[in-house]
């Protein structure tokens, strides 16, 4: 089959493409949407790194990263809505 290095490279290219929207985006919510997608993609990247190095501890790191990214996005949405 194709191999794990190609998947890691394609996911890194996808992260860089959403980084373009973070720097370019005209409004604040555009940048925040791009950061949300970047955290989702980075969770998949961490799970692939766990398979690349054959260490199961990176799966726990990915789970904690997903929880913290969700809380951060919810807090920023509350702030933009005027709650905090």
């Amino acid at each position, binding site marked *: *089959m*194709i191999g*794990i290095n190609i*998947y890691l490279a*394609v*996911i890194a*290219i*996808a*992260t860089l*493409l*959403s980084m*373009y*929207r973070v720097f*370019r985006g005209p*409004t604040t*919510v*555009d940048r*925040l*949407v*791009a950061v*949300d*997608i970047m955290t*989702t*993609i980075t*969770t*998949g990247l961490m*799970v*692939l790194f*766990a*398979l690349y190095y*054959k260490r*199961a501890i990176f*799966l*726990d790191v*990915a*789970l904690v990263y*997903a*929880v913290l990214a*969700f809380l951060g*996005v*919810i807090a*920023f*949405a*509350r702030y*933009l*809505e*005027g709650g905090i």
Partner: protein
Amino acid sequence: MISEIIGEFLVLFGTIFYFLSSLGLIRMPDVYNRMQTATKSATLGSLGVIIGVGIWAIGHVGSYAWLPKTFVIAVFLLLTNPISAHALIRAAYKSGIPLWEGSIVDKYREYLEKEEGKEEVSDETKEGEQ
């Protein structure tokens, strides 16, 4: 091994959807369309990548303990990604970002106008009863 082939196919599927979601993020005209294209395909792609790694590890690492952990991460992402997208886009609408000029349907504004009209009507009927 059959599990390596199935897992690698799922990881390939998810990787293609990751690439398409970030491509939609830089191609779409306004924030609502960007959220529409990006969130759905990123959620499907992460489901494919994460469960694919769990199945791939049965043959590649030789351990069955990866599959429950990856299943927990995938279910968590499947539950929380729509919630964060909904909260973000509601904050964008409440903070007054305009729609793209090509968009012609705004169901949320119609809903808000209907709610205001219903409240006014109910106030008038209450005053009439009194």
